[in-house]
């Protein structure tokens, strides 16, 4: 048993009085696209922060590809193959789009301090190899024009894409996307849907998607998990979840049921 890529059991974390996560259980299978939805303050971002090692949960288990994630530093978790984007863009603002993406090749660099310091031929080969990889990602996301531009100067939609590219450059097994479409135009959102499908189907990367745009979610998610007040209140296919009374209540309030 237990061959799920990600298994979370009884995950709990409190900030002061409130439990941002109160005993969350969920699993993610390899190769699936799971959407994680829920009203503001439900705990979606907090769950991502726990999985990435930014927050230390008070209780519960997190297992990823056979590894226990508890107590690991964020960089160690990145090495295991979990990557993410941030709800409020966390790019390296003064770097170019290319350098942002190259930074995420860090864990794949096979040269050490001295090769870099002395610019050995080994360093050159390695750097060019990762450059080629970064260029592929820029092509995939149609970001060639932004290559040498400082990311802080790019429009929000493009910044979101650079962040997606950076997350991909890590070559993760599991990709956590925190509201990737927020701040995008309708057109950009449409493109994003195709790109997310490509990431899933062509690159074979498992995705957990946090998204407020329910139309977008229902179109691509295979399974939806609904979080409210730090608890999973519903889970199932998009169609099942949309019918679920608790979900309707959580989203639209009591009166909408009657």
């Amino acid at each position, binding site marked *: 048993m237990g061959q799920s890529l990600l298994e979370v059991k009884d995950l709990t974390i409190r900030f002061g009085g409130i439990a941002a996560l109160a005993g969350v259980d969920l699993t993610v299978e390899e190769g699936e696209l799971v959407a994680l939805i829920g009203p503001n303050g439900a705990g979606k971002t907090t769950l991502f922060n726990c999985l*990435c*090692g*930014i927050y230390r949960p008070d209780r519960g288990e997190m297992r990823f590809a056979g590894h226990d994630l508890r107590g690991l*530093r*964020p*960089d160690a*978790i*990145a*090495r295991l193959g979990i*990557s*993410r984007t*941030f709800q409020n863009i*966390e*790019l*390296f*603002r*003064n*770097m170019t789009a290319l*350098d942002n993406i*190259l*930074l*995420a*090749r*860090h*864990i794949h*660099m096979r*040269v050490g*301090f001295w090769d*870099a*310091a*002395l*610019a050995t031929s080994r*360093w*050159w080969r390695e*750097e*060019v190899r990762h*450059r*080629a990889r970064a*260029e592929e990602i820029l092509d995939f996301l149609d970001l060639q024009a932004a290559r040498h531009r400082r990311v802080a100067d790019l429009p929000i939609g493009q910044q979101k894409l650079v962040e997606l590219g*950076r997350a991909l450059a*890590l070559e993760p097994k599991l990709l956590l996307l925190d509201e990737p479409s927020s701040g995008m135009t309708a057109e950009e959102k449409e493109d994003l849907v195709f790109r997310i499908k490509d990431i899933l189907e062509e690159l074979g990367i498992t995705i957990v998607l946090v998204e407020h745009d329910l139309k977008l979610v229902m179109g691509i998610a295979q399974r939806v998990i609904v979080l409210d007040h730090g608890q999973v209140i519903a889970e199932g296919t998009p169609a099942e979840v949309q019918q679920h009374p608790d979900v309707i209540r959580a989203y639209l309030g009591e009166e909408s049921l009657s």
Partner: protein
Amino acid sequence: MELRERYEEDLALVLGLPAWLGLLVALAVLVLFPLLAPRYLVYIVTLMAIHILVAIGLNLLTGYTGQISLGHAGFVAIGAYTAGLLMVRVGVPFPFAFLLSGFSAAFFGFLLGLPVLRLTGPYLTIATLGFGIAVHQVLTNWEGLSGGRMGLFIPKPSIGPWTLASEAALYYLAVGTTGVLTWIAYNLVRSHIGRAFVAIRDSDVAAEVMGVNLMVYKTLAFGLSAFYAGVAGALQGHLLGYIEPQMFTLFESIYYFSMIVVGGLGTIPGSILGAVLMTILPQVLSGLREWLPIVYGGTIIFIMAVEPWGLYGRWLRIKWWLKTWPF
């Protein structure tokens, strides 16, 4: 195939015939300079080279990695005293004492880097400031070690049978060392190591989530930065022939800091430019010694307010403007 060549061009430090010719001319001027220039100027340029080392080291830590240090005179002192004491008290030959000056400063850099990992912003600055003051106090009061206020006379460096006694010889030693360490700094900042530094500066959370070990890279930045300062300290001791604790006070730390602010945070050319200008400034203002702290302080505030990217940043913008001019 065509693309591949372009990546390598992007990585090259010197590209194209004019750039190579310019570099060759600059090298020739640097080699011929001490043979033609008056001794006083040779001394000044040697001092510039030493200041460039400190400025590049400080910029790696502050400009690139975003960790402000107001205690760099402490590392310069550790380098100067390591080299001096090893040669005078232990009789270690110059080349080893010289190398060890860098490594002992780097060691203290790592040590300082460990506890300050948890500090950011003003707290970190205060910790480094305290470190600089502590080094000065130890050197002043532990007379058995340092010779205290009496100072320490530093012998001329010698490599095998050759003694580097003349101004010109010390010039070549300092300029050569600075040249090599500048090249290494360039290599580091265009590699994954430099990217990790800048990533930590811009968003340490994202850097960590993308696989950068903060502890390794922050302590590396501290150690590396201190290494440059330590080597500069050893060179300074040899240039002056004498060291004493008053040469390594908070005032010097602020002086080094003003170099990178004036030249430009987070760039190597900016470090060089700032060090050169801030070496000339006190020479020009030699009649106003007491006012120098105010001049440095005022300069830092002025540049921070008007041109946060320093003079090198301003120059890049002028160049861009000229290129695109009539349009």
